[in-house]
């Protein structure tokens, strides 16, 4: 059973730095924990920009499965997907080595995936 492991650095934050809208000379407003919480909730609800709340393993699993099973250019229906702490484990069988590589590429392309362990086997 062939296994390949692809890792990416764990994302710290992809949020762009927030520009200050404070006018010079205006009284300083201290951003307390409530403000931070409200901002985070707003991002979570709106999904604004590229910065989203981190997906759970279940959500990642569904996203990876959708990417694989809906892929028109490769039959990946025999590929099983499990996710643990952001790491995607692919197993099962495909007909071509190119399909195995494609499965790994699609899994890596899902936002929030931190690593892909590709144990998919090309059936003889």
């Amino acid at each position, binding site marked *: 059973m062939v*296994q390949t492991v692809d890792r990416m650095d764990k994302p710290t934050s992809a949020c762009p730095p927030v520009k200050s809208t404070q006018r010079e000379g205006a009284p300083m407003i201290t951003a307390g924990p409530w403000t931070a919480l409200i901002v985070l909730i707003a991002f979570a609800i709106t999904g604004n920009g590229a*910065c989203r709340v981190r997906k759970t393993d279940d959500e990642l699993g569904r996203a990876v499965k959708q990417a694989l099973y*809906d892929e028109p250019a490769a039959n990946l229906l025999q590929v099983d997907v499990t996710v643990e702490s952001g*790491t995607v484990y692919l197993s099962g069988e495909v007909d071509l080595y*190119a399909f195995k590589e494609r499965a790994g590429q699609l899994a890596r392309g899902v936002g929030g995936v931190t690593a892909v362990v590709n144990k998919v086997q090309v059936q003889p």
Partner: protein
Amino acid sequence: MALCAGPAAAESMPEKTEPNPWQYGALLDVSYGLNFNFPENHQFRSKQTTPRTNEFSPNMALGYVHKEPHRARDWGVELAGQAGYDTDALVPREQEARDRPVPGADLLRHLARANVSYLAPIGSGLLLTAGLMKGYINFESFYAKQNFNYSRSYLTDYSPNFVFGVGSRYAINHNVDVGFHVMNGFQHLAHANDLPSYGAELDWRVTKRLAVAQNLYYGPDQADTSLRYWRFFSDTQVQWRGDEVTIVLAYDIGTERAVDQPDQARTFWTGAALFTRWDLSGPWSLAVRPEWFWDRNGRLTEFEQLLWAVTTTLEYHRHVGPQLWLTRLEYRYDHSTGQDGGFFRDGDIAPGVPRLASSQHLLLLSLIWAFDS
């Protein structure tokens, strides 16, 4: 609550490096099955895999080394050894005019894979394989680790899980691939004659989430190799994959005229199974498999019977580095009717003649450990 990279950042994940073509690994599979019939011989009647109950059962230990052909003109090799109760039934019983074990079968059952392959530069790549390889027929694997449930279905037990011969596989396009095989027979460790048997397969992804597979076997499996005694076997599968639920319906049918019967009567067996799995949450999943198997003439199970069963399995899995731990709790109900049907139960009706019951309740706890390099 942590913030994460969006899709654009994920796409910037570095491209993987070329993997080591050589891989190796191991598998250990143990279980304890509480059979509420409490048979004194500890046997699960008419079952090939997980054949022992009411005792600690090391069902499978496997070690392998493997190289896949990655591109045209590349070659591959598979070598694997296995041991455990699940391998016991691979050695066929000596039967007049039918199967007899190949010389050294008791040792050869420990060989799981021994093949070489070559990816010929034809079209998308024609994969040619020769030697002892995985069977091309079943949806389930011979190895519990790769299945929804722990115990295997009757369909899996009574279909070729191993093939000894030469095979070819070709992907016509992204959705259709075909295969053709020439092998020594239905059971790879049986030797009924010197003629080869033939197999064909078709896998077709009908829609994005729906696939159909058709597998065929045709060949002589008796001492008399006349065409009228050849065995025909068909396996049909329909699979649908959702994001959380997978459903597979498999139907098998087989027939051959029996040389050893006075009137060379046509024998017949058929069965179906519905494999379902629901990924509950995180490492938990639930699988339910109703099935039936009718061995009208006792050709495969050795008993004329209609079997049906329902198997429910709760699974928990966890990866630890390159290791995978799987534990499954399974409840299985089996029922058998027919002239020779039944399951072993406690006590004998006469010396050496075990008592039978028409049904069997089995509670299985299994642990599977796997390591892949």
